[in-house]
C-alpha cells in the first residue's frame, strides 16, 4: 500500500452468514480529506464503513477477508486490539445516540473509559470538544441537563463532540444527517468542512448534493461492489461508468 494513505482497504470481502455484502473492495482514504461513500440502500455502505473501526465484528456469524490498513498497519491482525482501533477511528451514527446522561457526562465518558482521571483536564476537553462541534453556545448554560432534552440536530452535534473528545485520527460518519432537518443538516455539513483540517473523514450519504458539497473524493457502491472511486468533481461531472452516471442523475436508486 501507499504511504500517503490514512486508511486503505485491500481486496475486502465481507459476509453476513452466507450472504456476501462486500466484494473485493479496494478503497483509499486520504489524510485530511473528506471521502464520501454513495450508493442505493442496502449496497453495503454501512457495512464497509463499520469495518474501518472494527464495529462489524460485534455482529455474530460474519466473515471478513482481505486487509484494512491504518497508517500502514494491518488492523485485522490478531495482535491488534479492536478497542484501541475504535479509539483512533471514531464514529458518528445515523440516528443520534446520546447516552441517557447529562451533556457533560456524555462527553467526559469517552475520556474516563480511556483512563483519563484529571478533572481539570477533562473539563477543558469537554469545553473544547463542544466548541469544535459548534454546540458550545447553545448548551453552555445547561451542561448538567439531560442530553435527551436536546433537539435532534443538537444531539447529533453532541455525538460529534463526544467523538472528538477522545481525539481520534479518523472520523467515520454513517448518514449523519439522515434524521435531521435542513438547518441542522447545514450546520453538520459546515462542521465537517471545518473538521477536515484536523481529521481524516469518511462519510456515508444518501444525499448526492451533500456528497458534492462536502467531499473531496467519492466512491460509488452498488450491490456490494465499488463501481467507481475518484475525485468528487470527476464522479459528478464525468463519471467513467454508466451505472455511476445513472445513479447520480437519478435514473435509479
Amino acid at each position, binding site marked *: 500500500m501507499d504511504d500517503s494513505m490514512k486508511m486503505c482497504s485491500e481486496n475486502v470481502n465481507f459476509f453476513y452468514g452466507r450472504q456476501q455484502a462486500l466484494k473485493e473492495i479496494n478503497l483509499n482514504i486520504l489524510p485530511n480529506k473528506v471521502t464520501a461513500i454513495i450508493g442505493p440502500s442496502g449496497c453495503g455502505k454501512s457495512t464497509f464503513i463499520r469495518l474501518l473501526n472494527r464495529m462489524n465484528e460485534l455482529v455474530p456469524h460474519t466473515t471478513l477477508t482481505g486487509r484494512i490498513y491504518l497508517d500502514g498497519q494491518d488492523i485485522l491482525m490478531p495482535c491488534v486490539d479492536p478497542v484501541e482501533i475504535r479509539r483512533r477511528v471514531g464514529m458518528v451514527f445515523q440516528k443520534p445516540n446520546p*447516552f441517557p446522561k447529562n451533556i457533560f457526562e456524555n462527553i467526559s465518558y469517552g475520556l474516563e473509559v480511556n483512563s483519563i482521571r484529571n478533572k481539570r483536564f477533562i473539563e477543558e476537553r469537554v469545553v473544547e470538544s463542544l466548541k469544535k462541534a459548534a454546540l458550545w453556545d447553545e448548551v453552555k448554560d445547561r451542561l448538567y441537563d439531560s442530553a435527551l432534552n436536546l433537539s435532534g440536530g443538537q444531539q447529533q452535534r453532541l455525538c460529534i463532540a463526544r467523538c472528538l473528545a*477522545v481525539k481520534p485520527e479518523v472520523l467515520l460518519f454513517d448518514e449523519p444527517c439522515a434524521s435531521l432537518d435542513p438547518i441542522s443538516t447545514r450546520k453538520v455539513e459546515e462542521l465537517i468542512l471545518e473538521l477536515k483540517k484536523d481529521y481524516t473523514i469518511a462519510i456515508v450519504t444518501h444525499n448526492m448534493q451533500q456528497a458534492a458539497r462536502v467531499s473531496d473524493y467519492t466512491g460509488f457502491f452498488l450491490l456490494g461492489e465499488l463501481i467507481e472511486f475518484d475525485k468528487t468533481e470527476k464522479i459528478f461531472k464525468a463519471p467513467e461508468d454508466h451505472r455511476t452516471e445513472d445513479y447520480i442523475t437519478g435514473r435509479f436508486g
Partner: protein
Amino acid sequence: MKRDIIQKIGFFSLFLSILITFSFLGMIVYFIFSRGLPVISWDFLTQPPRNAMTEGGVAPVIIGTVYLTLGSMIFAVPLGLACAVYLCEYSPKSFVVNVIRISINNLAGVPSVVFGLFGLAVFVKFFGFGVSLLSGSLTLGILALPLIISASQEALIAVPYSIREASLSLGATQWQTIRRIVLPTAFPGILTGVILSIGRVAGETAPILFTAAAFYKRGYPKSIFSEVMALPYHIYALMTEGAHPDKQRAIAYGCSLILLFLVLSISGVAIFLRQQQRSYHG
C-alpha cells in the same frame, strides 16, 4: 336489533366479571381491616408477645420478616443480576443458553413448598446451617432468583443497542459499557423487579416452614443462626396451635393486616417507579 341486544348482553357480562372480581378484592380488604384494625396499637407493633401468644405485641415477628426478606435479597440480587448480565450480554446466542434461559423461567413456576423442602435438605441438613435465619434467607433467595433474573433480563434487553454501540465506538471495553452505560440505564427496571420480588418473598410461608420459622421464640433473633418468627408463618401457627384460639385469632388478623399493608405498599412503590420510568423514556 338482535345484534344490539347481543352486544348489550356481551358488555353486561364483561362488566359483571369486573364487578365480581372487584367485590372479592373489596371483601378481602374489608375483612382483614375490620378484624385486624381493633388489635393494632403502638404496643402491638413495638412489644414482644406475652402470655403464650395471647397478649402483647408482634414486634419480633415483624423484625423477623424484615430480616428474612433482607437476607434473601442480599443473596439473590447480586447473583440474579450477574446471571442476567451474563445471559443478556456475554453468552453466545446458542441452543444451550436458550435451554438455560427457559429453565430459569420455569423455575419461577415451581411450588414454593418444594423450595422449602429443598432448603431443608440442602441448607438445614447438608450445609448444617440448622433451622435458622440463614437457611430461611437462602431458601427465599432461591425462590426470588428467577423473578430477579427475568426482571433484570427484561430491563437489560430494553436498553437500546445504539447506545452500547456508541460506547464501544469510543474505545470503551465491553465491561466498561455494561458497568457504566447498560446497568445504569437498566437500573430503574431492575429496581422495580427487585421490589416486586421483595413483596413476594415477604409473604411466603412454605419456604420458611421447615428452614427458619419458630412459633415462639423469646426476644429478637441474635445471629444468622437463630430461628426467627415471621409474619406469614406466625399467622398460620396462631390459627392452628396454642390453647386460646379466640385470643390468638384476633392477633392473627392483626398480623394479616400488617402483612397486607407491607406487601401492598411495596408493590405500590414498584408501580410508582414503573410510572416514573415510563415518563422518563417517553
